[in-house]
């Protein structure tokens, strides 16, 4: 039956009653769909691999699978003791050095940009490279070892706990420094100013006023350093000698076909449990020590020339010490042969020419990073909006994105490979999930915390009244997001892309460029 459209008149010119028309089509909230898709992706990328490892381990233990591994438990205990002792020592030293470093930089040296660059340089290199630098400098025929030997000082052997600890301290110092410096900058100027005007010395003001405010950042720095040291594979592999730690054992056992396949799975799940326990403990500590304030946080600086001089000497000295290993790497890259002589025999650009000739690995690294970066940033964009909207899902996603930061990369990698193997066994593989595709997935899941943290912070800074105006003027949520929210996020997207790209290629570079193994 034909129904005349509303507002039309009949032949006599009388208005016809308005017809009911088709029922209104429910509007699809594309943003919500994207958020839910992103949340599902995150679950697949992070939760599924970790769950696979935990389920495998529980199944193994429950089925009496350890009966034929009588030495496993004592070995596990020894590895755990070694790993905790290493990570604990490194954390104490790094945080102990970072606190005065951050205090001098923020309170006396006004964040001098050259010093800051020097102090953050190791962030660009993977621990693997730092470990090689440790050998070049402090090894048995290292430059520092030889120089000290000429003046009668005998260096202890670095292959073992000492080598790993030195590498980790030099490598992780920037991470703690930046975190603590951010905490010190959040201390309200007025509070510190009041303490000084009431007669406190700079030392008293910093220890009694500033540090309690910045305590959560100090704990966060300790957590980050502890977990980075606890989860590192590269340094123990190169300079660890006979000092065995959990992640390296899990990694080397996983890549070998001659050992028991159950061992790396059990070790991985043990690493997950310890890491998550440490994370919960530190988060609880952070919550208990957090001080709420409503002041605008501009930083107070002390106008004390002597403090500036001491600060410049201390910070400059640390920056120089952190720079030396990378200078050694730079020299190694143009050296024909270096070692056991004090200096390289000759200089050459052959290594760079070889790299240029074999452009394939470099291209692969760039392609993998180029694919993983936009995927991670897109995912972070959706997660960031979800977290800002709040609710249980947002809070869950906020926590989930912390996990890859907390869990050793080796464990996440082992989990992803196991899930992939199970999919293959079930005949569910697709070309996308093999080789480079799997590497992209691993990189996105490993590095997702970086863009997510950037996007979360940026979403929090956005003025929501603009979005509310747009919606009240009739724009859909998708239009509002595209035309109002997104333009405000462009700088954050660029920053997140840069950070993610560096993090991915930093992890990928040495692995893809390495010459593999023989035999």
């Amino acid at each position: 039956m034909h129904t005349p459209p509303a507002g039309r008149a009949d032949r006599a010119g009388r208005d016809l009653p308005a017809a009911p028309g088709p029922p209104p089509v429910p509007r699809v909230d594309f943003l919500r769909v994207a958020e839910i898709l992103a949340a599902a992706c995150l679950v697949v990328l992070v939760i599924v691999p970790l769950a696979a490892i935990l389920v495998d381990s529980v199944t193994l233990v429950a089925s009496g699978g350890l009966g034929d591994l009588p030495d496993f438990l004592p070995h596990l205990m020894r590895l755990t003791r070694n790993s905790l002792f290493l990570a604990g020592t490194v954390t104490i030293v790094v945080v102990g050095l970072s606190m005065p470093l951050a205090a001098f930089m923020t309170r006396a040296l006004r964040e001098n940009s050259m010093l800051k660059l020097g102090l953050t340089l190791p962030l660009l290199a993977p621990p693997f490279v730092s470990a090689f630098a440790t050998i070049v400098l402090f090894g048995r025929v290292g430059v520092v070892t030889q120089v000290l030997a000429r003046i009668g000082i005998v260096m202890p052997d670095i292959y073992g706990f000492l080598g790993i600890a030195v590498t980790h301290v030099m490598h992780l110092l920037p991470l703690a420094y930046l975190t603590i410096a951010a905490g010190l900058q959040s201390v309200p100027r007025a509070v510190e100013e009041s303490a000084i005007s009431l007669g406190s010395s700079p030392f008293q003001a910093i220890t009694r006023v500033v540090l309690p405010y910045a305590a959560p950042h100090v704990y966060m720095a300790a957590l980050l350093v502890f977990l980075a040291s606890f989860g590192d594979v590269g340094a123990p592999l190169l300079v660890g000698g006979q000092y065995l730690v959990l992640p390296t054992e899990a990694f080397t056992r996983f890549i070998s076909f001659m050992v028991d396949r159950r061992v790396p799975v059990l070790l991985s799940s043990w690493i997950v449990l310890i890491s998550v326990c440490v994370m919960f403990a530190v988060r609880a500590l952070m919550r208990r020590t957090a001080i709420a304030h409503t002041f605008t946080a501009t930083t107070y600086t002390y106008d004390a020339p002597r403090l500036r001089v001491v600060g410049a000497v201390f910070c400059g000295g640390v920056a120089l010490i952190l720079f030396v290993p990378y200078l050694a790497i730079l020299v190694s890259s143009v050296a024909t042969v270096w070692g056991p002589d004090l200096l390289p025999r000759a200089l050459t650009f052959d290594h760079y020419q070889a790299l240029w000739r074999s452009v394939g690995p470099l291209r692969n690294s760039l392609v993998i990073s180029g694919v993983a970066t936009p995927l991670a940033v897109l995912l972070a964009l959706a997660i960031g909006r979800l977290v800002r909207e709040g609710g249980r899902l947002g809070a869950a996603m906020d926590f989930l994105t912390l996990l890859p930061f907390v869990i050793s990369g080796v464990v996440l990698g082992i989990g992803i490979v196991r899930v992939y193997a199970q999919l293959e066994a079930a005949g569910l593989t697709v070309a996308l999930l093999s080789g480079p595709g799997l590497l992209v997935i691993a990189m996105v899941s490993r590095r997702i915390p970086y863009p997510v943290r950037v996007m979360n912070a940026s979403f929090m800074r956005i003025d929501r009244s603009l979005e509310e105006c747009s919606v009240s003027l009739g724009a859909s949520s998708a239009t509002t997001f595209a035309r109002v929210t997104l333009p405000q996020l462009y700088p954050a997207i660029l920053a997140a892309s840069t950070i993610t790209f560096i993090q991915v290629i930093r992890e990928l570079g040495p692995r893809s460029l390495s010459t593999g193994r023989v035999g």
Partner: protein
Amino acid sequence: MKRTREGYVRLANVAVVLAVALILGAGLPNGHAAPSRRLVVYSAAPLNFTETLKRAFEAENPGITVDILAGLGGEAMITRLDAERASPRADVMHSGAVFEFIEAAKKGLLAPTRPRDIAGVFPAHLFLGGSRIPLFDAQGRWYVWGYSLGVIGYHRDRLATLRLPVPKTWSDLANPVYKGQVVFNMPQLSSSAFNTIVALYQIMGPRAVWAYWDRLNENLVFYSRSTSALYTLVGRGEIPISFGTARSYHEGQVRGQAVDVVYPSEGAWVFATAMGVVQGAPNPEAASLFIKWILSPSGQIHSANQFQNPIRAGIRATEHNVDLSIEAVVRQVPKIVVVDLAVAEQIRADVMRRFDAYTSGRAR
């Protein structure tokens, strides 16, 4: 300001398009390509080896593009080929120890070929240093294309500085004068280290070998978990003595490192490396051509240039002066031990158990 925003939009668009294009496989070598023009090789050889192999083969065989997935390791290749059994993506399994190829052949992952067509003039065995090295499977499922010898490697200058003599035999390594000057890798993690232990077992016998290792263990600085790190340490002179395949020491020599090798008088062992056509390979003809080329004089020269001993007589490297020819091996190596695969299987569990104790310090 507006222009900057447009720039960001363009940047984001380009990034998305790039990601989608690459995901769809435009930029990633996933083995799905036009048949007959593209050969997919899974290889356990290091990247620098496979890159030069690809270039050399493509130069002599225009029209065929080779995609090599390098550095996989023998077990990884087997696992992967097994997983892809229903729809094979690779044409050739390349490099890795012979016993891994025997295992792959047992699993039906390698296609039979006619040895006369592929290997042509080659005899079934290579006779060297009083031993017999099998060169191919009777059904043509695998072909040995090169080998390296298990030797003692040392840093000349560092030993001279420490006033230590060059060890001449495997037994010398257990001499207390070398305490703290020897490094070895873990037989649980490295097939070359495992083969060394099996060879020593064959040389010394089941009782003497463990007494010997107890003494040698006292001299070791540590057991390296990374095989490449082992060669780096000896190459720099950090730790002056190690033992493994000669290939890496020769490579170091050519780079200018003061390293050298000793062929122990009790016998150097052979690490032969093989290749085979994958069962159900998308391009079996191109795969056979690839294998034939590697066995040809050109392919064998490439192997020698990359420090693998050639199996074809009269072949010498053209890019360096290290003589790896069969004739040189006959001249220089007094005795060669071929690792007995049956012995390897028989003692594997015991070796793993013992070295779990050695490498965790429990045996000291």
